């Protein structure tokens, strides 16, 4: 199967006029002569929409057309005030790209992108009114990137993975908010089934399921539709391949089934022709290369790099890559230093993430200074503060609103710098051994408790040091002392 996906671009204004894009505004309040299709009004292309489209297309590894133009697609519908949609017909701005998805067994699979083109959205018709329909044109003229894949998708799960991957990519690039609640992504799968009998391959007619607006609906509709097509074939003794026409179907989420809408044989005659009101766009190769150079690393590529280069677990890497700001922070803080990766990961995904989540923010949105993070990670790595002190410092920094934190200064003020003086620590160990004879005895000769006792003694040392002793050093001192007593 193949997919057609419409993604709403995150521009401030509409594609051809200066009306603000705003979800949930009063009906028809975000309109002007241009998007109302009033006589005499003319469209002027939003540069940001074009550039976002090129970025998105490049991120999907598309070729960018050196010459592209806009065409009128004619059909009548009350939410389309000009009764033509400005779209791109034979020269889409992006073509012949691909996106890779992960499939079972750690393999990746390539889904080819046939084309990506920029077009305007229609408005909204409200049908649940008795006897009439109501039209709101606030959405009219919203910039959409239509993405069409080749029929490379083999299962409902692949379609699901492809769609969610595309959403991550869009958000990552900042080209779309890609909010499913606000209808920023709409999907139209084209589905048919290939049936092999002996050496012959047969194909069922293609159904296009219109206007799905959630990932789940994509998966469920495809699952239902493939089964329905196979069932149609199995249950009909007189089934003839190639006889039934392709059709459009709708998804009924309540009944969990697709419903017939119309035959594709009654095909539209859209009468495409170049829009005389809009000039063509030529794209210079060096500009395309510049845009390509500025693209962020795609989330999947980045995830794989964090795993292979820094040894993160795939799960941790996914969590960090899920937000581009977090991933950027991660990369900037460790700055290629593999030795810092593990500690940075546990800092970010531990208490910091919880603290940020509690405020509905991302970690990087709360504390964005890579230099501060790097400093803290280094302090932990060098044993200047211990793990619990590090966490305490981080949480406190995240509570405040300073953009940059000097963690070393902060640790000093809070008296959290670990004591590196071995003599001082030996004294504390001596003291603890004296006060906890029972535990020392356990460590020496109680097989049931010999393992746990040194930890208990370390805890005691930390306690009397007020948390300033370096637990690693203390542990070593205790172990040495026990060995000494056993030997002596």
């Amino acid at each position, binding site marked *: 199967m193949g997919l057609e996906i419409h993604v709403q671009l995150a521009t401030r204004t509409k594609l051809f006029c200066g009306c603000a894009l705003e979800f949930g505004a009063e009906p028809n309040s975000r309109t002007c*002569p241009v998007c*109302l*299709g*009033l*006589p*005499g*009004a*003319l*469209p*002027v*292309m939003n540069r940001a929409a074009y550039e976002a489209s090129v970025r998105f297309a490049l991120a999907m590894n598309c070729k960018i057309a050196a010459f592209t133009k806009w065409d*009128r697609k*004619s059909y*009548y519908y*009350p939410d389309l*005030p*000009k*009764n*033509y949609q400005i779209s791109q017909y034979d020269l889409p701005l992006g073509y012949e790209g691909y996106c890779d998805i992960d499939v079972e067994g750690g393999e990746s699979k390539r889904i080819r992108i046939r084309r990506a083109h920029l077009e305007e959205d229609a408005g909204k018709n409200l049908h649940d009114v008795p006897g009439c*329909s109501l*039209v709101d*044109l606030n959405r009219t003229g919203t910039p959409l990137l239509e993405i069409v894949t080749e029929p490379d998708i083999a299962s409902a799960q692949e379609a699901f993975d492809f769609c969610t991957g595309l959403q991550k990519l869009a958000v990552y690039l900042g080209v779309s908010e890609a909010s499913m609640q606000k209808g920023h992504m709409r999907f139209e799968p084209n589905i048919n089934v290939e049936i092999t009998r002996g050496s012959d391959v047969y194909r069922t007619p293609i159904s296009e399921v219109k206007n799905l607006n959630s990932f789940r609906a994509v998966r469920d509709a495809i699952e239902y539709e493939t089964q329905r097509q196979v069932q149609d074939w199995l249950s009909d003794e007189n089934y003839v391949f190639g006889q039934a026409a392709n059709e459009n179907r709708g998804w009924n989420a309540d009944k969990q089934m697709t419903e017939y809408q119309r035959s594709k044989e009654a095909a539209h*005659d859209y*009468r*495409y*022709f170049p829009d*005389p*009101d*809009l*000039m063509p766009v030529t794209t210079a190769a060096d500009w395309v290369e510049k845009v390509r150079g500025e693209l962020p690393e795609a989330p999947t590529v980045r995830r794989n790099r964090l795993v292979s280069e820094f040894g993160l677990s795939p799960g941790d890497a996914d969590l960090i890559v899920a937000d581009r700001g977090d991933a950027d922070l991660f990369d900037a803080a460790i700055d290629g230093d593999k030795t810092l990766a593990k500690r940075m990961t546990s800092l970010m995904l531990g208490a910091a993430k919880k603290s940020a989540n509690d405020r509905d923010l991302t970690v990087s949105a709360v504390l964005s200074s890579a230099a501060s993070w790097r400093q803290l990670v280094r302090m932990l790595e060098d044993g200047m503060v211990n793990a619990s002190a590090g966490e305490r410092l981080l949480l406190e920094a995240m509570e405040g609103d300073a953009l940059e934190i000097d963690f070393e200064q902060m640790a000093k003020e809070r008296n959290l710098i670990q004591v590196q003086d071995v003599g001082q620590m030996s004294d504390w160990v001596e003291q603890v051994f004296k006060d906890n004879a029972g535990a020392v005895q356990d460590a020496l000769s109680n097989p049931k408790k010999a393992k746990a006792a040194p930890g208990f003694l370390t805890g005691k040392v930390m306690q009397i040091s007020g948390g300033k002793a370096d637990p690693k050093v203390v542990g070593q001192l205790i172990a040495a002392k026990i060995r000494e007593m056993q030997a002596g």
Partner: protein
Amino acid sequence: MPTASEISNSVREGNATAVDHVKTALVAIAGRNDELGAFVNVCEDHALAQAERIDALSADEKQRLPLAGVPIALKDNICTDFAPTTCSSKILKSFNPPYSAHVTEKLIDAGAVVVGKTNLDEFAMGSSTENSATCITRNPWDRERVPGGSSGGSAVAVAADMTPIALGSDTGGSIRQPASLTGVVGLKPTYGRVSRYGLIAFGSSLDQIGPFAKTAEDAALLLGVIAGPDTRDSTCVSTDVADYVGSLNESIAGKKIGIPREYFAEGLSDETRKHVDAAIETLRGLGAETVDVKLPLTKYGIACYYLIATAEASSNLARYDGVHYGHRSEKAGDIVEMYSASREEGFGAEVKRRIMLGTYALSSGYYDAYYLRAMKVRTLLRRDLEKAFEKVDVICSPVTPSTAFKIGEKTSDPLAMYLADVYTITANLAGIPAMSVPCGFDSVGLPIGLQLMGPAFSEATLLNVAHQYQLNTEHHQRMPS
């Protein structure tokens, strides 16, 4: 009536008030419009209020107004937020645009006073102003004859001295042809010279707004006000606007004038030929040289034009469906019926014919043979002209094959009506400027026009040649009785 140049001078110098001039125009309209049908709407209150505003300005402020207090008429396909804009169509009968066209804003900023909206062939589709849902416009030289079209109302407003200047629009000759048939100056600028924002579209790649006036000087003054870039029209260019008035008095000695033989071939009436030849002779007398040029594809222009213009029109007019504005049929059944019935009731026969032809030219299976081929022939026509302009500054020709025809004479044969556009449409297809200048009268006293065409953005040259011609001739001073 004084010229626009004289009127604005008198207002700037404080010798007369804008209100005086506007009242004079309103009286003239009241006296002649019933008979001539030039105006579909007279904006008396708006005009008087506007005139008073100008009179209230300081002397310094008035100095900055190139059209201070000049009454002007606008073709009723140019949007005005103070008056309905109907395209002389039933489908837009009571349409009040919530915005004004770019040219309307420019005129008001320049101190001009819009006194009314003029009649046209519905949606500018026609060559006689007979295809109007509002009224028929009559030629002031002979009221039984058409004034030409589609900007017939604006041409007559100027020809019959109701306003000194007016704006029309020209898609295939809709300024030049009525200018020729009513004995006034009319200019279609280079495509992209004047913003189309607020001009209700007919053929978007061909339409251009332009001036009507008695003199080339007034046309230059008016063009200078409306020309220039507009960020709301992607097809409007940023090329500098020339000093049209400043170059009027340059000598035309040495200018090379091209004569395309294809424009003087079969079909041209003897009387028109005689006067156009005489006009060219006058220009030679002023020192211009004539050179033969070849435009061999001229005869394909009409076919090319009628495919492109109607295809674009079929799409441009799709929006009139009774949903968001305009006429909605009372026969409201389902939505499909509402669309079809509203359009059936709202459009006149010629508009329907062109929607049908344009829809056909774009429809599946015919696009390549008709629309695409026409776009390619258009390329060749443009190349022909570019080649000709390598040798000459201006091309001279007739505007129309003959003088004004009788009302009703051609309505039964649409194709014959189309064929009469043969001399004017090439300029639209090529996007070049072209104008009509009065160059004589036939034996029954009907005006004849001389067409001047130039390369893109050569309006100053055309106006210069026209002005020098008018300084040496008196055709433009004759008045209809």
